[in-house]
C-alpha cells in the first residue's frame, strides 16, 4: 500500500464509523479525535477494523502513534507495505 492508500483506508474506516464525518478541513497533523466526532470506543473501532481487514494486531502501547492521519500513515506504512 502506498501512503495515499493508507490515508484512504483510514478515512474509509472512519466514514464507516460515522458517515457524517467531515474530512474537508481535516489537518493531517492534528489529532483525529480533536477534529472529528470520535471517542475512545470509536478509536478502538479503527484498531479492530485494521485487525479485521489486514490482520494487524496493534499493541496497546502503539495506540498513541495512531493519533493523527500522518502518524497513522507513518506507523502503518511498513506494516502494510505488502498489502
Amino acid at each position, binding site marked *: 500500500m502506498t501512503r495515499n492508500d493508507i490515508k484512504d483506508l483510514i478515512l474509509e474506516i472512519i466514514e464507516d*464509523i*460515522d*458517515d*457524517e464525518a467531515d474530512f474537508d478541513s481535516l489537518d493531517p497533523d492534528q489529532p483525529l479525535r480533536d477534529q472529528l*466526532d470520535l471517542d475512545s*470506543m*470509536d478509536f*478502538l*473501532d479503527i484498531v*479492530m477494523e485494521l*485487525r*479485521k481487514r489486514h490482520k494487524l*494486531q496493534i499493541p496497546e502501547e502503539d495506540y498513541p502513534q495512531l493519533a493523527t492521519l500522518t502518524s497513522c500513515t507513518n506507523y502503518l506504512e511498513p506494516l502494510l507495505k505488502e498489502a
Partner: protein
Amino acid sequence: MLSDNQRVVITGVGLVSPNASHLSEYREKLLRGQSEIQRIDLRYFGSAPAGICTFEETRYRKKKENKKGTRAGCIGVYCAHEALKDAGLADDFYRKDRTGVYIGLTEHGTVETENEIYNIKGYDYDVSYWTHHHNPRTVLNNPAGEITMSLGITGPHYSIGAACAAGNASLIQGLQMLRLGDVDMAIAGGISESTGSFGIFASFKAQGALGEADDPTKACRPFDINRNGIVVSEGGCLYILETLDKALARGATIQGEIVGYGMNSDAKDLVLPFGERQAECMQLALDRAGLEPDDVDIISTHATGTKQGDIEECKAIRSLFATSSNTYINNTKSIIGHAMGAAGVLELAGNLGSFRDGLIHPTINVDELDPSCHLDNLVLDKAVKRENITTILNNSFGMVGINSTIIVHKYSG
C-alpha cells in the same frame, strides 16, 4: 384519599409498535384490528412470524450513535423523545438530576451476544476479534442509559427485569419513586429487541410455544381453539409520569391516573402460568385502588396465544369478574404480537384512548373460541362503543412465575 403529590398520572406516551410509530396511529390501527405481523428470516432458525417496528431511527439520534448502541437503545431514545413531546414537556422543564428513567426488560444482551459469536465465527473463534462494544451494549442498564445520554438526564436510570411483566413493573417503579419524592418526573415503560435473537425463537419453538400460520397476521390468536403459541415482536413504549400536583401546575393533559397496582409470584413453575396467583394479583391491584371488580370497564389481557397461558388467565378473570356485567375484555397481542418487556405498557397505551373515544379495541384472529377461554363481554373482531369508560385493568405475566396488574383511571378533576 391520597394527596395530589402522591397521586401519579400519565401525561405523555411515546411508542413504537409493529404497526405504528405514534400513539394516535397505533390507536387507529388497534381499533381497526390491523395487524402488520410479517415473516422474517432469522440466522440458523429460518422463517418465523414476527413484529418488526418501522420508525424514523435518526429523528433524535445520529446514525453513528445507533450503530454504536443497541436496537433497544435506539427504540428507547425514540420513545423517550416522543413521550416528552406528547407530554408537551421541553426536555429541560424538570431538573435533569431529578428525573428518573426506569425501563422494563424481559431480557437484554441476548441479541448482542449472538451477533458477536456469529462475528468471531468468521475469524475461527479468535476472541481478539470480539468487539469492545460488547460490555456497554449488554449491561442490563443499557437502554435506560442510552436514553439518559441522549437527553442529558443525570438522575437515576436502571432496568427492571421482570420477564414479560417488566413493562408494568417499570410503571410501578416510576410511581413509587415519585411517591417517595426521589424524582420529580419519571420516564418509565418497557422495550424489547427480542426479534433480533434466533435463540429466543428457537427456545419458544423447543417449548412448543411459537405461534405459526401461513398468513403471519393470523399467527397470534389468543383464545382461539387452534392457537399454537407466541409471536415475538420488538417494540417500545415509554410514559411520562408526574405527580398530579405538578402536572396540574403546568397545565398538562392528563391521560390517566395509576390508581392501583399489584405484583406477586407463582413460586411454582419456570414457564407455566398459574391462574390462582394471577387472580390474587388482580385482587391486590383492585384493593390498592379501592375498587370492586364491577368498577372495571376494560380488562387488557396478557394472553399470548399459548394453550395453558390463555386458559389460566381466563380462569383467573372469571373467578373475580363473573358477575361484572360492565367489564369488557380485549387482547392487544392478537394484533401486535408479544413485545415482551414492552408488551404490558404497549397494551395499556393502546387502551388509554378509550377514555376519550369511548371505544374498546377488538381482539382479532378468534375464528373459533376455545370454550375454556369463554369470557362474557370478550370484544372480538370489531371495536365496541361504551358510555363513560373510566377504568382499565392491565395484566402482564411472565416466566418464572411473575405477575403484574396495573389499574388506570380516567382523570376527571
